[in-house]
């Protein structure tokens, strides 16, 4: 029998069951005219820029634009409309659906107490202009975006991986990125530091933190070989009833005395 073909463009976890007739509800997109501040801001933006869409979602203005005008629009928002802080910047992977990344800039105006999200979409092999000259805080966020999605940022002062090692292959937050490491990832540190021949010496990584090797009395406490306190190590082991939860851990421990001492001076 042939193995069923599974597309690799989105290897993330998926719901194992979905009702055939279930249609996901949508968060309503409210017209910008509902909010005075957003209405006037959108009007000013529309006078100067060609925007694709503008609506209010959950109390925040969302402006969809062409990626080419991202820097100019952020300059305009900062200088003319008082959205003077960049609070968040990142991307969403839509490669599986349309071969695009969606990049969002989350802005805050402290004088108006309003938040705006500017969104734009770029193709996989396209690059986006850096907004580092508008907001210095974009420096690390753009690096993180490059690190996690592989989106190249033009005119960035120091575009280098931020969270992952410099020689890392692949972009972790893409939907195509595998959820489990392959053999090379498993032995990454060993190969790098000691060399491939050391794999046998070190052995596979033990990921169970509760694992105790009962026969190993050198590296771990003498589990199941405990002797009474003060007795020599080779004397007769004692039975410890570890499942008796009522047995006091420390003989002299008094719950009432140990907590909430009245420290009024």
């Amino acid at each position: 029998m042939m193995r069923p073909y599974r597309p690799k463009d989105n290897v993330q976890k998926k719901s194992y069951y979905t009702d055939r007739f279930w249609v996901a509800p949508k968060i309503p997109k409210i017209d910008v005219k509902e909010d005075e501040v957003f209405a006037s801001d959108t009007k000013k933006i529309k006078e100067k820029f060609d925007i694709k869409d503008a609506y209010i979602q959950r109390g925040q203005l969302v402006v969809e634009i062409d990626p080419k005008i991202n820097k100019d629009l952020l300059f305009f928002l900062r200088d003319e409309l008082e959205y003077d802080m960049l609070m968040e910047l990142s991307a969403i992977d839509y490669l599986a659906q349309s071969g695009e990344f969606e990049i969002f800039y989350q802005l805050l105006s402290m004088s108006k107490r309003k938040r705006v999200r500017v969104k734009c979409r770029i193709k996989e092999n396209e690059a986006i202009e850096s907004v580092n000259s508008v907001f210095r805080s974009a420096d690390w966020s753009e690096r993180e975006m490059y690190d996690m999605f592989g989106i190249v940022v033009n005119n960035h002062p120091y575009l280098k991986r931020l969270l992952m090692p410099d020689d890392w292959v692949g972009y972790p937050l893409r939907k195509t990125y595998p959820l489990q490491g392959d053999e090379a990832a498993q032995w990454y540190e060993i190969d790098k530091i000691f060399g491939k021949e050391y794999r046998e010496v070190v052995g596979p990584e033990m990921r169970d933190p509760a694992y105790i090797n009962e026969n190993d009395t050198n590296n771990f406490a003498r589990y199941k070989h405990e002797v009474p306190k003060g007795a020599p190590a080779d004397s007769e082991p004692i039975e410890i009833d570890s499942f008796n939860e009522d047995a006091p851990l420390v003989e002299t421990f008094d719950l009432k005395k140990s907590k909430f001492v009245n420290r009024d001076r």
Partner: protein
Amino acid sequence: MQQRNRLEPFFENLSFDREDNRMVINFGPQHPSAHGQLRLILELDGEKIVKAVPDIGYLHRGMEKMAENMIYNEFLPTTDRMDYIAATSNNYAFAFAVEKLLGIENEVPRRAKVIRTILLELNRIISHLFWLATHALDVGAMSVFLYCFREREYALDLIEDYCGARLTHSSVRIGGVPLDLPEGWLEKLSVYLNNLPRQIELYEGLLDENRIWRMRLENVGVIPPEMAKSWGCSGIMLRGSGIEWDIRKEEPYELYDELDFDIPVSTTCDSYGRYKLYMEEMRQSIRIIRQLIPMYKDTKPQLMARVPQYISAPKEDIMTQNYSLMQHFVLVTQGMRPPVGEVYVPTESPKGELGFFIRSEGEPYPYRLKVRAPSFWHTSILQDLLPGHYLADVVTIIGSTNIVFGEIDR
């Protein structure tokens, strides 16, 4: 024979053999005052810093990736591990973001809101005490460290009595809180709150006029307001630069619009001003909790929102009613399916603006979850802030940014 280390050193375009008198030193990632795993590559001219390159990622656990492969309730305990000094504020920020995504933030019962707000402010006190302890220790005041930790232990005891955990609380759920306050808890809390102001006075008595403390903090790490805005600073880093902005006041959530408290602001822009703000914020937190204690008595015992589509029914209903059990089964095995759309929800955590951006495609798993951790932005400012300072001030500046690596690397 020892094996030669084959790790190729990567020196960030900095060369070590130079003609000039500059020296490149590596600060961290295992430095005791690096507050976790911060690596700083400093270029020194004498003792003066001319270039600083912060390097992060040593604690990267891929939380955003984990979130994309977990149902919403499953991810909540993971948020504990971000800012582990004040775990409840992360839990709350996430739960609140999901509530906003679902549109059920007004369904949360009032008792749950009171408990959440108390926990949030208690966490703020815990976090600020921890900050003062470690910061004072870094600068050289050992006894303050011990006093602060003593007081923090009592606050952790309170948290432990409520939810059973001291560090990773998970004490907030999407749609409310899991537990009611235990008997006598509010009395213990008020005893604690009565003790705390004297302790804060003690810290201030030790530090305020202390010559060493002032010399090491005053005019060190000056962040002008423009710089703070441009670098996306938030919380005390922003208020320390003279900008009055607190999300609890400006975009109130939970019960903060009913509470009476002040937002302290410092115009000195330096580390000492920020230290004074931390002290004042603790006093304001005490004031907030004192107002919340009488509020608790007027609330009904309901703890979780009644939204059967998204939130499981109370245990009693699950045990007695067939339909509640079925819904509970679906919510546990498949998870809730929020509507298609996206939200960005900011909250004021002890460190600054902690925001969650969630994109939902109507699936039980978030399509994209981005954590806006305040420490991440406060670390990136170091590359602009450190040049011009002396090497000894690095410790003070890192301390006063109050960064925690759990939430920087995520």
